[in-house]
Each structure stands twice: as structure tokens, then as C-alpha cells.
């Protein structure tokens, strides 16, 4: 067991980082906030943590904590400014944000290491720390999917007017999504730079956005389980597909395209649908929808006065006055 662990340590680390990053996209998506800013936060978090370690020799946890704080605040500011955009446009604005971060990193001179990035980020970060941090945030996300908050998130996503009428402050929830996304992205980036000891613009470009997106598409955006599945699949898939040889990327692409078209809610969505179908089969059938009852015409003739309605009312009421 431990042999396998050490032989695959890099992949295990990548899975944990990938999971947290996938969560940074999944959490807002679940709420109907189409923000990919988590990927940009990943970049900011990685660079911030790297710089803190390199220039101030900060211990790993402190650097990670500060990086997360920074990305959470950036997330909040971003949210305040663009949260009102409709889905597609919000998505593009956040993608633009992510790409701008990449350009800034490339052009940051010696401070950000330019196009080669930063090296030698050596800290006291350990694997137990990585596991614990990951499990903590995963636990928090799981909690947010249950109980009152979990239900309210459904309302915020599906029907905002309804949410408002049920006392939900929709704007606050959406802002919280941005903050959470920023913090999670920053954590992923910071942890990654700690284990890889380097960060560069090539690590955080459009490719990362596509990777996060594919994890969520295939895994499923509606639940943390989707993020877990997506992270595991797409971290380990390249290794598993090695036997396919040179057409690896093509197979990868086909999988993603198929999932995007056929499984809008990912693998997790398939499980949910199957579960519900199974539950439905095991239950007694409900009263069939009223195909036999036709809706009454909207406007009743008033000319003959209210008594005209009496004739058509059924005996359920025992007759009106």
C-alpha cells in the first residue's frame, strides 16, 4: 500500500489540488453563478504563496492562509462588480479575468519571474497538512449542500423571485459564491505551489480553465461528488489511457464532448436521475395528471349575475347560497 502511495505521490497531490480547484468552480456553479474566477484565484494564490515563502520565508500554513485571504477579498471585489451579469456574460467576464491574471504574471518582470515563473518555493508543507486542509474545505462544502443552506441554494439557482419571496437575500448568496470560489481557488493554487515548488504562467492559462471545466462537466456541477469524480478521473485518466498511445488526447476530447452534450449534469447527474427513477418505480403510482379535466374559461359572463355560476358548481360544496 505504501509503495503504491509513494510511487503515485505526485498524482495524489494533483488529485487533491484538482479537487479543491474543481470545487472553486463547482460551488458557484451550483448556485447558478457562472463564475470561473476560481481559476484566476488559483493563479493569484499560487504566486502570492510563492512570493511569501521566497521573500519572507513564511511557514507554509501562514503563507497559504494569507494567500487564501487575498484571493477571497479579490473574489468579493470581483463579485461586487460583476455579479449582476447574466450567466453567459458573467462566465466570459470571469474567463477574461483569469486570462488577465496570466498576462500580468507573464509581464511581471523579476517580481513574478516573467514567462518562466518562480522557482525554489521550499517550505515546511507536509502531506498531512495537505490532506487535512483538503478534507476541511471538502467538509465545509458538503455541509453547505445540506440543511437550510442547501435548500436555499436550489432556490437561488432555480428561481430568484421565489427565493426573494422566501426571505432569501439572493445578492448575498451570490457574493458568498464569489468569496468561496476565490478562497478555494487560492487554496488550490497555494497548495500546489508548495508541493511543486514552482509556478509559472503556463500553469495557469486557458488550459487550466478547460481542465477545471471538464472536471465539472464530466463529474457534475450540482454536487461536491461531481467535483471529486471529475478530479479523480481527469488526474488519473492520462495514466490509464497511456495504452491508447498517441490518440490519447483525441479520446480525451471525445469523452469531454460527449459528456458536454449528453450529460448536462455529469456523471453525478446520471446517478441522481437513476436514483429518482428507481424510487419512482418502487412507489405506488400517484393520481394521474388531470388529462380528463379541462380548465374552465377564464372570464365568466357577468351579464346574468352571480347565480349563473351556481348551476355549474359541483356538489362538493353542498350547494352555494
Amino acid at each position, binding site marked *: 500500500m505504501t509503495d503504491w502511495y509513494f510511487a503515485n505521490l505526485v498524482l495524489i497531490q494533483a488529485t487533491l489540488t484538482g479537487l479543491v480547484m474543481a470545487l472553486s468552480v463547482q460551488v458557484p456553479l451550483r448556485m447558478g453563478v457562472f463564475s470561473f474566477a476560481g481559476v484566476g484565484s488559483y493563479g493569484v494564490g499560487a504566486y502570492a504563496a510563492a512570493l511569501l515563502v521566497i521573500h519572507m520565508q513564511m511557514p507554509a500554513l501562514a503563507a497559504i492562509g494569507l494567500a487564501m485571504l487575498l484571493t477571497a477579498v479579490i473574489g468579493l471585489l470581483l463579485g461586487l462588480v460583476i455579479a449582476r451579469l447574466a450567466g453567459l456574460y458573467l462566465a466570459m467576464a470571469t474567463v477574461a479575468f483569469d486570462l488577465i491574471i496570466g498576462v500580468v504574471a507573464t509581464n511581471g518582470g523579476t517580481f513574478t519571474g516573467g514567462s518562466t515563473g518562480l522557482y525554489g518555493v521550499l517550505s515546511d508543507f507536509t502531506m498531512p497538512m495537505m490532506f487535512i486542509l483538503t478534507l476541511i474545505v471538502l467538509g465545509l462544502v458538503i455541509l453547505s449542500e445540506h440543511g437550510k443552506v442547501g435548500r436555499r441554494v436550489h432556490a437561488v439557482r432555480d428561481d430568484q423571485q421565489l427565493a426573494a419571496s422566501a426571505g432569501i437575500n439572493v445578492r448575498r448568496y451570490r457574493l458568498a459564491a464569489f468569496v468561496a470560489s476565490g478562497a478555494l481557488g487560492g487554496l488550490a493554487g497555494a497548495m500546489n505551489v508548495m508541493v511543486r515548488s514552482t509556478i509559472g504562467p503556463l500553469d495557469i492559462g486557458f488550459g487550466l480553465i478547460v481542465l477545471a471545466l471538464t472536471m465539472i462537466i464530466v463529474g457534475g456541477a450540482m454536487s461536491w461528488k461531481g467535483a471529486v469524480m471529475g478530479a479523480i478521473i481527469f488526474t488519473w485518466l492520462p495514466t490509464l489511457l497511456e495504452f491508447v498511445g498517441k490518440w490519447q488526447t483525441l479520446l*480525451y476530447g471525445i469523452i469531454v464532448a460527449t459528456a458536454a452534450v449528453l450529460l*448536462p449534469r455529469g456523471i453525478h447527474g446520471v446517478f441522481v436521475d437513476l436514483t429518482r427513477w428507481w424510487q419512482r418505480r418502487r412507489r405506488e403510482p400517484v393520481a394521474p395528471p388531470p388529462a380528463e379535466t379541462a380548465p374552465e374559461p377564464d372570464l365568466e359572463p357577468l351579464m346574468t349575475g352571480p347565480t349563473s355560476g351556481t348551476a355549474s358548481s359541483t356538489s362538493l360544496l353542498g350547494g352555494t347560497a
Partner: protein
Amino acid sequence: MQELVSTISLGSIYLLFALGLSLTWGTIDILNFAHGAIFMFSTFTAYLVLGHIQLPLVAVILIGIVVGAVLSLLIQVLAFEPILKRARTKRSAEMQILIGGIGIATIPLAIAEEQTKSNPFGLTGSTFSVNVWHLGSVRITNIAVLTIIVGLLLWGATALWFRRSKQGLALRSIGVDSEVSSLMGINRRQLALVTMAVSGGMAGLAGILFTASLGAITPESGDILLIKAFAIIILGGVGSMVGVAFGAFALAFVETLVLTHTSGSWTDAVAFGLIFLVLLARPAGLFGRKEVRRA
């Protein structure tokens, strides 16, 4: 002055590429994120063909157009139509098509990457060659002239079609079977198919002309161009033909400026920054008419 020429030729290329994207987005509400992949793959196909036989530019362009149109149709029928049929709300359909496009784009990318090992590929093997002309102090290539002419012509034709098809669609949606819509004689699905095919054909055309101008492209060229096209359309406003033309030349102008006055690494950022700023300040764009805000 030379910069002006550069701007115009760059802007024409951008315009050609963005036209197809704007056409489908403006008429049938489909933001096709595989547009860049179609652009690239049409050229890639031409490159493969040219590896076997020599062809004049006209034939190469034809290949590009046909491949682009066919790819686009395939995507519409195999991916976008099923998505639209099954989507619950308009908003989720939009996102699913966006994501679907991104997903599908990985396939041509993978094929091209595998074949070229991510190296640039061009249209060598065509009988076409670049000629440079001098008008006073200004250099301009024959391909640039061709691109500018084709770009403007196509823009005009598209703008006209756009207006007619929008009229037709609008009239149909309120139940009036006018002369315009019956002249078109086609229903909504057919219009979507035709629009996608035309859009794909334009992407292919843009790919050939672009590659002929630059000499070569890489499999990833489509992606960055896609983001720029998005910036152009957002700046100009979705659903506006004037807007897309304005956006194309405006972006080309600013990029040329940035390129000549700073190091080249910031030029791409112009597009990103533009997207962000426009969505912040005036999401409907300069000439746009679509509703972009939720609240």
C-alpha cells in the same frame, strides 16, 4: 501610415472571423465556441490536401469553406440541436451550448496536435505566393488586399442577410406570414442549419486567408482568436453588424498601437481587458440591443 495599413488588414481578418460567430449568436442565439476549432481545422485539412497535390489559392479557399461548412453543420446537428431540445430553460441552454462548444473544440484540436506535434503548419504546396506591393512609403501584400476586399464584401452581404433573416424570424414569431418570411421559404430549423453552415464556411475562409497572410498557424491559434472575436462582438454589441465591424477594427487598432509601443506580450491582454471592461461598464456593447443584465 504603415500602421494604418496594418490595422486595416488585421482588422479585416478579425472581421472575417468574428462575422461567423456574430451571425449565429445574433440570429439563432448560438454562441459557438467551436468556431475557432473550425477555423483551424479547415486550414489543417487544406494543409493535408496540399501535402498530396498542388492547388491554386482559389481551390484552397474552396476547401476551407466546404470543410468549415460541413464541420459546422455536423456540430449543429449532432450536438447543439440535442442540447436545445433537452434544455430546461433558455439560460441553461446557453451555458450548455457554450460548454458543449468548448468540449467539441477539443476534438479537432487533438487531431491536429497529434498530426503536427503542435508545430506550426501552413499552406506551402499551394501555387499561391505572397507579393509585396509598394504604394509610396507603404508596404502591402496581395493577400492583405484580398483579405480586406473579401472581408468588407462579406460583411456587407452578411449585414444584408442578417437584417432579412431577423425580419423573417421576427415576423414569424408574431404569426405574420409576410412576403419576406415566405420569400425565405424556410422554417426555423432550416434557418439555423443554413446560418451555421454559412458561419462555418466563413470560419474556413478566414482560416485560409489568415494562414496565407501569416504564413503558418498552430493548432492552438483558433482558441486565442476566439477570445478576441468574443471581445469584438461584446464591444460592438451582440446582434449588430455595424458593431462587429467597429469592434474588429477598434481591436486591431489598439493592438497595433500596443504592439508598436510596448513589447509584444501585452497585445493579447487588450482583448481580455476589453471584455472585462465592456461587461463592467456597458454590457450591451456600443451598438448592441440584447439584454445582458439579470437585474
